[in-house]
């Protein structure tokens, strides 16, 4: 399956590079960073029927790092949540898809994000609702490491393991994924604020914490599947610290923070597509 997923991820990378070029959309490095996480989730883990995107029992995914939205748009489009015509209008006047998503802009879009530090509290609410309503769905929230500067992330982090009701204690149906590429808008994330040791921080906040290679599709699918199937020894929420590379997949973009804002030129798009082995 992962060979197929790898092809999908390469194709989605090619698409978001094209989108960035054609529609002058920044944050390309951030989108490429989380693309394997999205591919693993939508391609091999999440239970969401694109034909029933409002089903009360569907799994929920929130891309809390909303500036990487083109990656989610391309993924949802690939997995049949909406058509190519909608994706083609991305970032045009009056279109459905903005650089960062609005609420319900397309089927499958659970929340408007872009202002950082909002996705995890909302995900917490969705996970708590599943407990109250006795529904079996899981909630996945993808954050950026820079986003972990926001205090609201840590408010939510402290709350998820502590909540208790008639249903028990700790939200074991909630999975936070940190796309840990070690760069934020203007520099190294560990230089700007003291982020290290990120995995230990989540662990100390009461989360079952695992570190993975955020570009290893096998490992990602396995990690999410283990979470989904439940951990008898741990009843709380799960944090997946995914070590990633900003701009992943294109040698001249990898770990180069200029691509937080830079828009690729036509020849750069061509070179990137050649490297990915994909033509769009």
């Amino acid at each position, binding site marked *: 399956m992962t060979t197929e997923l790898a092809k999908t991820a390469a194709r989605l990378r090619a698409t978001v590079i094209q989108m960035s070029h054609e529609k002058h959309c920044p944050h390309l490095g951030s989108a490429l960073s989380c693309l394997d996480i999205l591919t693993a989730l939508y391609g091999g883990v999440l239970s969401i029927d694109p034909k029933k995107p409002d089903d*009360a029992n569907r799994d929920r995914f929130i891309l809390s790092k909303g500036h990487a939205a083109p990656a989610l748009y391309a993924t949802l489009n690939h997995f049949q949540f909406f058509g190519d015509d909608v994706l083609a209008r991305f970032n045009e006047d009056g279109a459905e898809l903005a650089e960062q998503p*609005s*609420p319900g802009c397309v089927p499958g879009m*659970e*929340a*408007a994000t872009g*202002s950082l*530090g*909002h996705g*995890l*509290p*909302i*995900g*917490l*609410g*969705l*996970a*708590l*609702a*599943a*407990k*109250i*309503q006795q*529904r079996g769905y899981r909630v996945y929230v993808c954050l950026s490491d820079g986003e972990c500067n926001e*205090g*609201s992330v840590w*408010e*939510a982090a*402290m*709350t998820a393991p*502590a*909540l208790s*009701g*008639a*249903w028990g204690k700790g939200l074991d149906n909630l999975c936070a994924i940190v796309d840990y590429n070690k760069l934020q808008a203007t520099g190294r994330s560990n230089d700007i604020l003291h982020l290290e040791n990120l995995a230990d921080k989540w662990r100390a906040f009461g989360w079952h914490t695992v570190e993975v290679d955020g570009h290893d599709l096998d490992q990602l699918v396995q990690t999410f599947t283990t979470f989904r199937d439940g951990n008898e020894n741990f009843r709380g929420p799960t944090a997946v610290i995914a070590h990633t590379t900003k701009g992943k997949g294109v040698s001249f973009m990898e770990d180069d923070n200029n691509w937080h804002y830079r828009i690729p030129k036509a020849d750069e798009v061509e070179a990137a597509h050649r490297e990915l082995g994909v033509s769009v």
Partner: protein
Amino acid sequence: MRNAFRDAVHELAKRDERVVLLSADIGNRMFDAFKEEFPDRFYNVGIAEQNMIGLASGLAMAGLRPYCYTIANFTTYRVIEQLRVDLCYHHQPVVVAGVGGGLSYATLGSTHHSCEDIGMLRSLPGMDVLCPGDPPEVTACVQLAAQRDDGPTYIRLGKKGEPPIHEGAPNLEPGKWLKLRDSAEAPEVVLLSCGNVLPIAVDAAQQLKDSGVPTELLSCVSVKPLDTTALADAFSRARIVLTLEEHSTHTGFGGAVAEWLADQSTPPPARLVRLGTPDAFLHRTGSQDYARSITGLTAENVVAQARLALAERMAPEARR
């Protein structure tokens, strides 16, 4: 008012299993009966208000009806962006209640005063703002907010022990105010009271009436939406329309009325007088009554300001 809020939400929870109550670590023992009856529908989410609002949005997205409860300044100023993005932008039916509105917690100092919350919240697209004036109006506000499906409602509470003006919860309709004192003849003064200053307004209206000034009194529970029908009626019939609120006259209820007035194509005959707190912090401590007295929020001052405005209004006519 806070006990009326608790009781009204408890009653709702009995009829509507979607009701979930969130507290940001206040109300010690206050919610014990609720917790006992609905152990999976009450959560103390800690002194973490940003997370509380986001969490409430997630609960509402899944079809539940969250009620967020903490001190007014923490459930407004502290979380203004969460209110804007998580609740308003997403059209989520979440009720946000702020206890200690205005100068209710005067002795705690200006960190705990909320005299800018109405202005901040009424600027948010889709946010309804309700300011009950006594415990029965709180019950009515909770019932009204529960009917809303397409967006959030802010309910601005006082503290505990306010005297009831109404006998039983009044019937409150969306965007409608409550007329508490009518006048047989055309009123010279219409008092528009907003929120927990209602007892002061009732006292002032009585004093004006006793001294021969025909006066009407409305409790303007809904600041957003405004009752524009009642406004048009008041400004067309009275000489003076006086707004009263335990909130800054900048951006508050009086500010909303002034905006409405400025938009009228034909200036109505009545003059607007706005009474509220100043555009300043209070640096000396004191009780709520003390804070009200130094900011002019007393029945005596309301009467004096109404008389002054009436005298100014009459003067040009006397000269003619």
